[in-house]
């Protein structure tokens, strides 16, 4: 077997799909890290999100839709396109907020983390997402296979992927519900009042975060079992 044959075997067909799935799951976990940081600032420190912050969070959730669809429905170019569009919308919010505080001497909005404010980190995330999606679109191979999603993937991988998906979904619910006491059903105040934080990340906030993860994992195990009970298809993976 030549070197090029081995390369072809590794990066073509279902292998290409499997690699793409792993990258999509990793992207979801990276996004969860960003969302966890913003939720820690909101609930742990008590820094309430401004309207522009909520627009950026909406962009972050939109970013997740592409990988979630890739995993649930199969790898498609249109799913990456949705993530790119979400990143553009989210970065519009980030750029707007950066420009509001761009003058020298302006302290910016909220605390800085590693020298950059959250809205700057959000822009970095959106740009990385656009570049990442573009790179994935450059790789044609996964689109040649009529992938049907993780439904027929290996059981352990399905649990990991479903955990990431349900964890993002849980974050969406937490973010959505937390908007109600801050803004009600209408528009949010431009400069919301901060609240008392719940405390240290090592406190019960961490317990709550682990609880949400445990819930997502439990749901993933149940859904995985239901998927495993589905009748086998002729083109199912080994």
């Amino acid at each position, binding site marked *: 077997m030549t070197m090029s044959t081995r390369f072809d075997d590794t990066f073509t067909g279902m292998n290409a799909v499997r690699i793409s799935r792993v990258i999509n799951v990793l992207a979801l976990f990276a996004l969860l890290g960003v969302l966890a940081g913003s939720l820690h600032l909101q609930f742990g420190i008590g820094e309430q999100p401004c309207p522009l912050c909520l627009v950026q969070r909406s962009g972050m959730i939109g970013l997740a839709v592409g990988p979630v*669809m890739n995993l649930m429905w199969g790898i498609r170019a249109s799913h990456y396109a949705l993530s790119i569009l979400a990143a553009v919308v989210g970065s519009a*919010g980030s750029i707007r907020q950066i420009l509001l505080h761009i003058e020298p001497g302006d302290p910016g909005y909220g605390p800085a983390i590693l020298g950059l404010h959250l809205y700057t980190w959000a822009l970095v995330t959106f740009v990385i997402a656009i570049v990442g999606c573009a790179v994935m679109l450059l790789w044609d191979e996964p689109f040649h296979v009529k992938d049907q999603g993780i439904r027929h993937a290996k059981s352990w991988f399905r649990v990991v992927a479903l955990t990431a998906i349900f964890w993002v979904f849980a974050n969406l619910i937490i973010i959505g519900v937390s908007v109600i006491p801050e803004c009600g*059903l209408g528009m949010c105040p431009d400069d919301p009042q901060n609240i008392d934080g719940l405390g240290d990340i090592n406190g019960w906030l961490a317990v709550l975060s682990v609880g949400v993860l445990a819930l997502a994992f439990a749901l993933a195990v149940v859904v995985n079992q239901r998927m495993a009970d589905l009748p086998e298809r002729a083109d199912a993976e080994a």
Partner: protein
Amino acid sequence: MLSMFVLWFVVFIGVFMRKGWVIPLTLVTLVWTLLLLRLHMTDPIPLNF
């Protein structure tokens, strides 16, 4: 602003149920997010483009 996240919630439910309207609704949600962003752009930023 709650409406943005309600729309995302419906999008996710649509993904789980493999509904055909997911992609159009995602696009509507993104346009709605942009509209809300525009409504909150109340302070002028003096830039010389």
